[in-house]
């Protein structure tokens, strides 16, 4: 269980002048100095920029200004979020040298709330992977056991929080890329409702599935961070045009009277220690007054298959723009077509190429109906099945990851084994519903286990109430 200071407490003490933002940032930079070589959470540490922003925040506070709810809080950004003038790589060689001319909407919103950005974190190339082993810049190691992966694709962001390099971080979740690494690193990770957080400035992997979300030490920090970044953005056509509900009141609500579902036909595959933790979570919730209700979601099983057609199909189109013409790397050759092939052949890693080929195939004339078209049908079926389940329950609880953190190289030779890491997380991306992983119990070698709480669209208040209850009973709530 994490022993670092919560973001709430940092913001409170910086806002009142009790501690300086520069001191807080320096403490985090010192921890980075100490362990980053071993962990490799970052593609880029923004040491000078962070200290300069911290100085400005201290000046503003000294001048009596209100800085915002994240005053002086050190935050790490997944390196697929655009930062103006600062290299943004997606951990890919193909974006070598590119500096975005703009900030992602979430980046400007957090800056406006007083956050200090300490670095850009490592990820599986273009967010494709579950271990951060697919980064072009080398893997991130799990701070809790450096012989093991931190999960992925947002492994750097999960590790940064787990190692105390930043008080919070942002990741992106397309099929579990926040929740699975959160589970493996023992931190809280949230995938919000699709459209709750603007995707403008998030470098797309699969646009209909991608959502940006928080990594934090505890549930209350996750609520705070999500409240700071959610809300309508006219620059993202898929952004929900309604106010995002308040979460802070949900945290102490408890679960009395809530109906919490256990999916009886959940795909098997979770390790025994993980399954035991989930069973205990249901006991704890029942003890706290929730009604535990059995439900079936038959389409759950088909989620993985549908996902590995839809996500690569969208990716094959989203990643076509990396053609060497306008930005990023280019391999000079005699003519345009060979330039495309050489640039993309050298710029992309093997997993990205695999998914581009999968997706291109799934959309091809003559195969569309059999693959992509059928996957869309599964997606609709999934939405129907969840809608039916949510007629009788308010939230669902499942494992976040089938296992605790696994050793490096144990799944790299078998893409399918790696893909199975996302079994329990993928359905929420297909439905667009919110889901989060909260640390609950320990398994093999004392490594953390994450329990996943799922809720219907815009059901974050209920989801956070359940997560907060689990956290309380696990003894993890920070003060």
């Amino acid at each position, binding site marked *: 269980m994490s022993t670092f200071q919560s973001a709430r407490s940092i913001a409170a003490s910086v806002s009142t002048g009790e501690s300086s933002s520069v001191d807080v940032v320096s403490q985090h930079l010192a921890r980075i100095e100490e362990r980053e070589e071993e962990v490799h959470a970052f593609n880029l540490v923004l040491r000078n920029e962070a200290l300069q922003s911290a100085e400005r925040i201290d000046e503003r506070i000294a001048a009596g200004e209100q800085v915002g709810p994240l005053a002086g809080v050190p935050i790490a950004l997944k390196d697929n979020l655009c930062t103006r003038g600062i290299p943004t790589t997606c951990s890919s060689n193909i974006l070598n040298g590119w500096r975005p001319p703009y900030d992602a909407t979430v980046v400007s919103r957090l800056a406006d709330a007083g956050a200090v950005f300490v670095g850009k974190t490592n990820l599986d190339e273009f967010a494709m992977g579950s271990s951060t082993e697919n980064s072009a810049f080398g893997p991130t190691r799990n701070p809790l056991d450096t012989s093991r992966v931190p999960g992925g694709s947002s492994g750097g962001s999960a590790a940064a929080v787990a190692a105390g390099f930043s008080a919070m971080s942002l990741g992106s979740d397309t099929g579990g890329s926040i929740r699975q690494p959160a589970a493996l690193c023992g931190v809280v990770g949230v995938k919000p409702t699709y459209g709750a957080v603007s995707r403008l400035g998030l470098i*797309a992997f699969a646009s209909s599935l991608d959502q940006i979300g928080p990594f934090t030490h505890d549930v209350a920090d996750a609520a705070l961070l999500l409240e700071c970044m959610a809300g309508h953005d006219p620059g993202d*056509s898929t952004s929900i045009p309604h106010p995002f509900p308040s979460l802070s009141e949900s945290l102490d609500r408890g679960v009395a009277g809530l109906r919490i579902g256990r999916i009886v036909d959940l795909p098997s595959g979770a390790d025994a220690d993980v399954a035991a933790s989930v069973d205990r979570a249901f006991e704890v919730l029942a003890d706290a007054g929730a009604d535990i209700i059995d439900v079936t979601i038959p389409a759950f099983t088909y989620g993985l298959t549908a996902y590995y057609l839809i996500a690569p199909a969208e990716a094959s189109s989203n990643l076509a723009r990396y053609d060497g013409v306008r930005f990023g790397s280019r391999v000079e050759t005699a003519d345009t077509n060979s330039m495309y092939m050489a640039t993309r052949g050298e710029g992309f890693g093997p997993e990205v190429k695999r998914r581009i080929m999968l997706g291109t195939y799934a959309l091809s004339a003559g195969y569309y109906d059999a693959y992509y078209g059928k996957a869309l049908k599964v997606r609709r079926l999934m939405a129907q099945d969840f809608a039916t389940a949510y007629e009788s329950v308010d939230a669902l609880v499942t494992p976040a990851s089938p296992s605790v953190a696994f050793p490096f190289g144990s799944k790299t030779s078998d893409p399918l084994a790696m893909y199975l890491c996302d079994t329990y997380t993928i359905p929420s991306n297909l439905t667009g519903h919110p889901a989060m992983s909260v640390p609950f119990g320990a398994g093999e070698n004392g490594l953390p286990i994450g329990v996943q709480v799922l809720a219907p669209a815009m059901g974050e208040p209920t989801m956070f109430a359940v997560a907060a209850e689990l956290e309380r009973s696990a003894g993890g709530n920070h003060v």
Partner: protein
Amino acid sequence: MSDSATWTHEGFEMVVGLEVHVELATETKLFSGSPNRFGDDPNTNIDPVSLGLPGALPVLNRQAVELAMRIGLALNCTVQACTFARKNYFYPDMPKAYQISQYDRPLNIDGHLEIADGIVIGIERAHLEEDTGKSTHIGGSGRIHGSEGSLIDFNRAGVPLVEIVSRPDLRTPEQARQYVNELRAILVEIGASDARMEEGSMRVDANVSVRRPGEEFGTRCEIKNVNSVRSLGRAIDYEARRQVALISDGEVIQQETRHWDESDGRTHTLRTKEDADDYRYFPDPDLVPLDPGAEWINTVRSQLPMLPAARRIRLAEVTGQAADSEAIATVVERRQDDYVVAVVEIGGGAERVLVHVKEAFSEQGSKPSVPATDLAALVAMEVAGELTSTQTKTLLGDLVEQGGGDPKSMAAARGFEAMDTSELDGFVNDAIAADPDAWAKFCAGDGKAMGALVGHVMKASRGQADGKAVTAILNARKG
């Protein structure tokens, strides 16, 4: 070239459908806020969306949707709820390596357009899409193959286009020209586009096949690079003859895209069906479905101006001329029919007003500088016999040159007064005396000789004699 209402060649008829792309006259681009302006310095009207930068997202332009709806309604289409799709292909001036277009659910479907002789051409669809950038190839032939290098201007990338696809209902080059001319007149009238083929704001591709009347459709070829209405007629005439010749030689037409070469008046293979891209269309996940709704559609419909066909009918009724007469077509094409109607309402003389506007107002545009009251006053004097037709023409020239004036005082200033008969008789006597040969020939029945006599009268009267009155006197004298 067959220019009549029928085209047949060795027993074959041509079957032609046109795909017309028009750039919409919006303030900004289809999915971003950059100006939509022709002729600016290269790469000045660009932004992250136009360049397809990572993290950029499209936001649909409401004005573009409205103009596209106007086009649909003016072409008698059904306007429906629609979706956007990605058309994937690599080309250097295509920033994202996909074009956002509409595929299985276009905005406008099932319309029609009437050309001369009551022939109705079906409109299959009129959908919204974005334009590409513009490549300039340096060295070589000016095309990409064999060039030394290419420059790309992205000002045009993302400019809104509507693609209007006709059904294969055209049977002659003349019909194709009429269709394009009528379509252009409609687009200009409704303010959707300036529709200039020479500037590329209107681009026409022709699908051409041939068959013996009554047989199934033949294999079609698509003709590109047709840059004027005249070329369109030449290109499809050439292409249809080429296909007839091949079939007559026992060959089979291959489906392909062909390039019209203005300089040699032929079409040449651009790419065959085997080389055609598989566009892998799929719904664009960055955009949401667009449902204009009945209220918006009705508002747009109610704001449509009177269309060219209705204008020709109105002008025909006002002037008593045939709706398909050249004068009416010309005046409506110049959009001067409102002016003609206004002049006639003031002072009558409809037939004269139409003739004068057609003859003297070719440089005047839709709002002539001569006030309607001034032209009406001039025509009133002409009709009343106060001015000869020659005098009227002179004063009309003065009005145009001076941008208006009082015809009565202008006539007085030029010394134009109607001559009485005795004065005219004197001039006629002088003419007969001056040219007795002509008089003899005229009396012998040689009508041409009259011209010489009238010429004498005009010269002697300094053009102030009324030619009709002189003719009448000469005829009376001849007996």
